[in-house]
């Protein structure tokens, strides 16, 4: 007996592929075939014009269609949310292989983890009935900062198009395990010497401060979600996806991009819909709906975030600089977070 003999026995008891696995594979092949507009493989070329062939074609075609529909239905309900930002049918992608939640989950996590030297740009808009629309922008560079790397973040908030505040934050990503609350898991790291500048346009003041707790994976915040199993808040979409709390609900095209639409599986009034690019699996847009509570009970707040991954050009990096307008008064610094 040697190491190969031992290895051959390892995990030797995996189950055989289920009927569903066979059906799923056949559906994937059919989808690939449809891309190239070819005839079914099961049928011989020499019998193409006979009535019997045509009957078989109908039967096989029906069987394949049932399989595809069954598999498709099991994986996702291709429904369009009436409140989705843009939800027109993706005719170009109709025949493409449509990834299920498991594939989307792993690829989205890989995509989010894989983006390194890019600026993550978020443009958000929040609406509450009867209240002015609030918009915001945020730049984060680099997205997925590595331990020891300096990360810069900047953002602004506006009401009805009028800028209310701007801010910037610079910090060095702590070494793994150096923070007191497991940043990799929670997305938040504390004991960090973050330098923050806040500019208040309404009061024409500005303030510099130290911020000890920072968000390592900014944007995509999902604090209001509670994992029904662990009863812990879910800090960001990466965790939400990793925990299997998003399900695939459709494959719409948004602004010319084929996307996969995911919806939160969490209970309660708060919902999140996320659209990821069907090729890169990077997030394109999200829509977060939650009750406003006091002081506006019974109302629903809807926030739509649009995401872009920008190259770190000089022009783009300039967005990370917050300049204090002349004449603004500095107020005493403080420690935040």
């Amino acid at each position, binding site marked *: 007996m*040697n190491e190969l003999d031992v290895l051959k026995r390892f995990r030797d008891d995996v189950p055989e*592929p289920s009927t569903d696995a066979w059906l799923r594979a056949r559906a994937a092949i059919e989808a690939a075939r449809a891309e190239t507009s070819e005839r079914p493989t*099961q049928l011989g070329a020499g019998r193409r014009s006979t009535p019997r062939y045509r009957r078989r074609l109908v039967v096989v075609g029906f069987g394949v269609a049932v399989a595809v529909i069954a598999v498709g239905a099991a994986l996702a309900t291709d429904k369009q949310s009436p409140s989705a930002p843009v939800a027109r049918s993706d005719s170009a992608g109709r025949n493409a292989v449509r990834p299920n939640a498991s594939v989307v989950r792993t690829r989205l996590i890989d995509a989010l983890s894989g983006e390194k030297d890019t600026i993550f740009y978020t443009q958000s808009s929040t609406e509450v009935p009867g209240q002015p629309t609030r918009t915001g922008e945020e730049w984060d560079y680099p997205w997925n900062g590595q331990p020891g790397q300096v990360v810069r973040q900047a953002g602004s908030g506006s009401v009805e198009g009028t800028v209310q505040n701007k801010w910037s934050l610079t910090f060095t990503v702590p070494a793994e395990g150096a923070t007191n609350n497991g940043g990799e898991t929670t997305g938040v790291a504390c004991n960090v010497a973050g330098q923050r500048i806040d500019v208040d346009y309404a009061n024409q003041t500005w303030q510099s401060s130290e911020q000890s707790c920072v968000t390592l994976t900014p944007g995509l915040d999902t604090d209001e979600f509670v994992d029904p199993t662990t009863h812990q808040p879910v800090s960001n979409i990466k965790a939400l996806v990793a925990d299997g709390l998003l399900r695939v609900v459709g494959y719409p095209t948004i602004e010319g991009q084929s996307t996969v639409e995911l919806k939160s599986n969490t209970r309660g009034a708060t919902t999140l819909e996320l659209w990821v690019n069907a090729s890169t699996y990077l997030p394109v847009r999200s829509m977060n709906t939650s009750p406003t509570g006091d002081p506006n009970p019974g109302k629903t707040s809807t926030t739509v975030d649009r995401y872009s991954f920008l190259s770190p050009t000089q022009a783009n990096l300039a967005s990370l600089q917050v300049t204090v307008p002349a004449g603004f008064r500095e107020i005493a610094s403080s420690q935040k977070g």
Partner: protein
Amino acid sequence: MEREDRTIPTPPRKSLEDPQSFEAAFRANFQHVHRFLARRVGSALADDLAAETFAVAFRRRETFDPSLGEVRAWLFGIATNLLHAHWREEQHLLALEARIVSEPGPPTTESDDEPLARWVAPHLARALGLLSQDQRDVLLLHAWADLSNEEIASALGVPAGTIRSRLSRARAELRDYLGAFDFDRWLFDEKSAPTLEDRE
């Protein structure tokens, strides 16, 4: 960096373009490909990856050249390439399995086959987790897919000499790790074993 000792020619257009051949290849190989994937990343992900393997194979079927090897090897090559996107899941699974608490002690007789395999599994998981992706691919294609060096070379598009050296190194590393494991007495010296944590 390993020296490439020969160039793999671009496969000419051949055989799987015939629809019946593809169907036959699917019927004959799906189970084996699925099983290989399930052993590496678990059954749930294997369902997706096996389906994707055959969808990719269908799209690229004109690039399959039977003169370079069996269709089985070609399919395992596609499956292995797809697995590369799931390195983290595979590592995670190995890490979990490596942490499984073993029986209080190894079975006392070699005829006691099943408990023996169960007892050694965490150690093997840890050992596999320490291998590089290239080494693990070659080792598992050899051990689990029963591919020869030439078939692995054809499947991965890598010269056979490179495959031989990768397999040799992978087996040596496995032996080094399991060196703490006495095959004759079925005892494992935990203290001399490296840990997986650095590779996760």
